[in-house]
């Protein structure tokens, strides 16, 4: 490892820009002649739009246009879609209701847009929006899953009778039932995974610029995958063909899944830009983010686990109702199915599993993948079950887990996944040691003598990252391939540009991707530059989510690097009059082994471009591209243990210690990996203790600002103790697995298990607010 190579804690290149206020986010962009969009949104969760009167608004100063849902439908802009097809048990396809970018007739969740005002200034558009009169006829509302599937419930979409989108299953029902028949013990539980709001700190925004002369659109957008945005906007939404649409995602202030999708506002901005013949900017405010960013989680689950007389798990049955909100967001259907149920075995050898998932429409904000996407839901359910089982079976929770760990790899689970490698015992050992698990009973007794309830909670998670291979996801219903592309360009003077389809919105690609090049070529990372986030510069990419950037994106770069190196070695051999097989690359030099002859990288690069003296028939230039489609998911795993105290008089929880032991395979930059884990832990702990998106019975969002929705603040969280154990991923040449979501996946159960341990009562749902904990203690 060099000082800047793989494994080094290199300080991030992008930080000079971000710490000095020179980041360039979408709202920072100004284009000459730009107008501003302000959306008119329904205050009703379910209503008919009877009429929209914009005559008064049109008289107001600075109003350029008021455009409505009827107009966008008339102009044949396509409906929003979900691209992952799920088939119900009975063989029928999922039932998708139409989702126009602005509602021409019916609104189905509070905040859905019905019209947009385009103004010369933001304030003028906003003022005029107040003067637009929308006449609604309210319709009956279903605000939660139970209400939506009750007999006689109001129907949201004619396509989905009973508000059921699909009724899907996976696993072997007969085998699972058989296990329960022979079980020595059965553990049963109802578990709620509550709804979250992603709340990336940068609200979504779009700047759309239609060029009349060229009939060409440019869209600046807060996106995690600008190429996919372009693909969907052109292939499905009829905005413009791909070669007439440039999508740029510049600096993006956090995504966490919420910026994967195409939203109505981007489509409307593009369409409106052509309509008014001017650039259009829309910047969401925080209230709009609460109402319209795709939410996360929202599962109601009943599960049973069967054990034999030796406390080995022999079967698992799960039935989950997933609330997908009022419309099907881009990838929503895959989250409670293939991203959730396939991870239900967790780290355990469970021979028989049967899971059913019923996806339901309600009059709430659409739900889609959010930080971890399906995996946190699976892990939380399973790890609460394991803890509950340990208490019911009267065995130590850590030992019950250890006894059931998968120890042979590769391991084929009964629900699709083939785990390639892992050492679950090593993570558990490491976490138990870090928290002094053995000493806990003494500490608990001491706390008790001081009037405090102390608890410890274990959670062993596994996740599946780098969703792949394309052939496999295609067979499961995905509408896209999940490979990544890269191009490595060595410039004539030896500096290097890496073009990648991955997108960085906080993950530090500008540094880690350069570390790979530094490692291979021995050049400083300052000579290497990442180019990303622009559909006109990078040919294609799938973007960043599901912790895929290293395992898939970086491997694509490695493949392109290998091609560049091969050609560079040919040139070097020719220049040095040596044999190609004798050339080695060391510290930026190409050396002929066994001689003192060498040539530096810049001279090789220059030779490639002057082309005065190249091997006969060689094409000039030094740039290569590669597409990489992985052979399998990667499987990061680990153990989190939380020790905390509950004050029985207030129900307030305070952390004593939180340890995380993860196995992410090879770490490219341990400093960045740790940062990713911290962020994930904050999300998981936030959900466990604070965060909760609440809708009342009328579908009114009660938690639609930072005043009502409890975001974790510095004071709410502990400092974390991290450690890493390593099994190298055999599925990619770098041995990397992915780390972005682990913290969010594993930590919620650790916290809730610790609280329920402390209070001696298992009836607790997230978020475990002091009020809920107090009631759990005192009844």
């Amino acid at each position: 490892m060099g000082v800047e190579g793989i494994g080094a804690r290199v300080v991030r290149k992008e930080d000079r820009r971000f710490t000095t206020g020179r980041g360039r986010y979408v709202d920072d962009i100004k284009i000459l002649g730009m107008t501003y969009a302000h959306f008119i949104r329904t205050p009703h969760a379910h209503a008919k739009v009877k009429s929209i009167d914009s005559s008064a608004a049109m008289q107001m100063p600075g109003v350029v246009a008021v455009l409505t849902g009827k107009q966008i439908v008339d102009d044949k802009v396509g409906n929003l879609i979900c691209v992952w097809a799920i088939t119900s048990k009975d063989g029928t396809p999922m039932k998708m209701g139409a989702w126009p970018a602005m509602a021409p007739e019916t609104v189905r969740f509070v905040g859905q847009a019905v019209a947009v005002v385009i103004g010369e200034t933001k304030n003028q558009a906003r003022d005029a929006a107040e003067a637009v009169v929308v006449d609604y006829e309210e319709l009956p509302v279903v605000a939660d899953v139970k209400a939506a599937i009750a007999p006689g419930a109001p129907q949201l979409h004619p396509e989905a009778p009973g508000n059921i989108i699909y009724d899907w299953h996976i696993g072997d029902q007969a085998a699972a039932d058989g296990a329960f028949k022979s079980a020595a013990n059965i553990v049963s539980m109802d578990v709620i995974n509550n709804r979250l709001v992603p709340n990336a700190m940068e609200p979504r925004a779009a700047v759309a610029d239609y060029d009349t002369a060229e009939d060409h659109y440019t869209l600046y957008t807060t996106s995690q995958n600008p190429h996919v945005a372009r693909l969907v906007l052109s292939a499905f939404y009829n905005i413009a063909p791909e070669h007439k649409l440039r999508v740029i995602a510049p600096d993006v202030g956090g995504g966490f899944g919420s910026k994967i999708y195409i939203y109505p506002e981007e489509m409307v901005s593009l369409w409106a830009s052509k309509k008014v013949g001017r650039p259009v900017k829309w910047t969401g405010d925080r209230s709009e983010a609460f109402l319209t960013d795709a939410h996360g989680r929202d599962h109601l689950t009943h599960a049973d686990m069967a054990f034999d007389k030796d406390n080995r798990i022999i079967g698992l049955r799960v039935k989950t109702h997933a609330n997908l909100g009022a419309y099907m967001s881009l990838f929503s259907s895959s989250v409670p199915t293939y991203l959730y149920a396939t991870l239900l075995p967790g780290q355990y050898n469970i021979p028989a599993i049967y899971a059913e998932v019923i996806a339901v429409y309600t009059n709430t904000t659409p739900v889609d993948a959010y930080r971890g996407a399906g995996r946190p839901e699976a892990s939380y359910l399973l790890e609460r079950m394991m803890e509950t089982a340990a208490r019911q079976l009267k065995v130590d929770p850590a030992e019950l887990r250890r006894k059931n760990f998968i120890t042979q790899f590769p391991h084929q689970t009964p629900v699709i996944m083939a785990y390639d490698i892992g050492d679950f015992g090593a993570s558990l050992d490491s976490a138990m040691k870090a928290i002094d698990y053995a000493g806990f009973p003494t500490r608990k007794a001491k706390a008790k003598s001081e009037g405090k309830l102390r608890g410890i909670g274990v959670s062993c998670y596994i996740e599946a990252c780098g969703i792949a291979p394309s052939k496999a996801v295609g067979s499961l219903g995905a509408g896209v391939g999940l490979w990544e592309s890269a191009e490595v360009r060595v410039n004539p003077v030896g500096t290097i540009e890496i073009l990648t389809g991955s997108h960085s919105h906080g993950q530090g690609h500008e540094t880690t991707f350069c570390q790979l090049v530094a490692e291979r070529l021995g050049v400083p990372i300052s000579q290497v530059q990442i180019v990303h986030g622009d559909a006109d510069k990078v040919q294609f990419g799938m973007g960043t989510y599901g912790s895929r950037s290293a395992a898939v994106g970086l491997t694509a770069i490695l493949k392109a690097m290998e091609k560049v190196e091969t050609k560079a070695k040919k040139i070097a051999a020719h220049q040095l009059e040596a044999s190609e097989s004798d050339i080695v690359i060391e510290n930026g030099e190409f050396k002929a082994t066994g001689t003192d002859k060498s040539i530096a990288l810049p001279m090789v690069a220059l030779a490639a471009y002057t082309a005065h003296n190249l091997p006969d028939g060689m094409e000039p230039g030094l740039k290569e591209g590669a597409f990489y489609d992985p052979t399998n998911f990667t499987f990061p795993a680990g153990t989190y243990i939380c020790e905390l105290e509950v004050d029985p008089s207030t129900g307030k929880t305070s952390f004593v210690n939180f340890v995380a032991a993860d196995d992410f395979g090879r770490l490219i930059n341990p400093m960045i990996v740790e940062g990713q884990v911290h962020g994930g832990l904050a999300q998981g702990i936030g959900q466990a203790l604070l965060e909760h998106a609440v809708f009342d019975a009328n579908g009114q969002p009660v938690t639609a600002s930072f005043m009502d929705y409890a975001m974790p603040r510095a004071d709410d969280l502990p400092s974390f103790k991290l450690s890493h154990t390593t099994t190298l991923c055999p599925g990619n040449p770098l041995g990397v697995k992915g780390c972005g979501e682990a913290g969010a996946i594993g930590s919620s159960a650790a916290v809730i298990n610790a609280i329920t341990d402390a209070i001696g009562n298992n009836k607790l749902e997230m978020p475990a607010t002091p009020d809920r904990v107090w009631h759990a203690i005192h009844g």
Partner: protein
Amino acid sequence: MSAIKLTVNGKAVSAEIEDRTLLVHLLRDHLNLTGTHVGCDTSQCGACVVHIDGRAVKSCTVLAGQAAGSSVTTIEGIAKGDELHPMQAAFRDNHGLQCGFCTPGMIMSAIDIVHRHGGKLDEETVRHELEGNICRCTGYHNIVKSVLDAAGRMKMSRAAE
């Protein structure tokens, strides 16, 4: 509309603005100082923190007119040329940022925290004092580390002056 005059990052500026213009919009939209961010509409997130006459203030809660005549410092105004402010350097060295969106506000708040507490900063105080700033990426662990680190650096750089 009113004309206002103030000092921003050491330079005298004047602008013709609507009376309802907030300081954050004066900075971002009129002066093109886009380092100050808007993360919420209820003054909870702290992405917009700047200094007015040396004190940390959420620029989304201040009318531009209220800042007339005062001296405003934004994230763009704290480095000395190419040399980062010790707080900026500490954030970089301790990986106190990821997407960078909350970072300008965090840094401006953090500098004020250090000024007010001097050498008496500990983790608990930093966590408590950061309650007006939200970060969704870092889990705060490294932000807290950055602020404590910078507190030492700022003391040293004052001593050197």
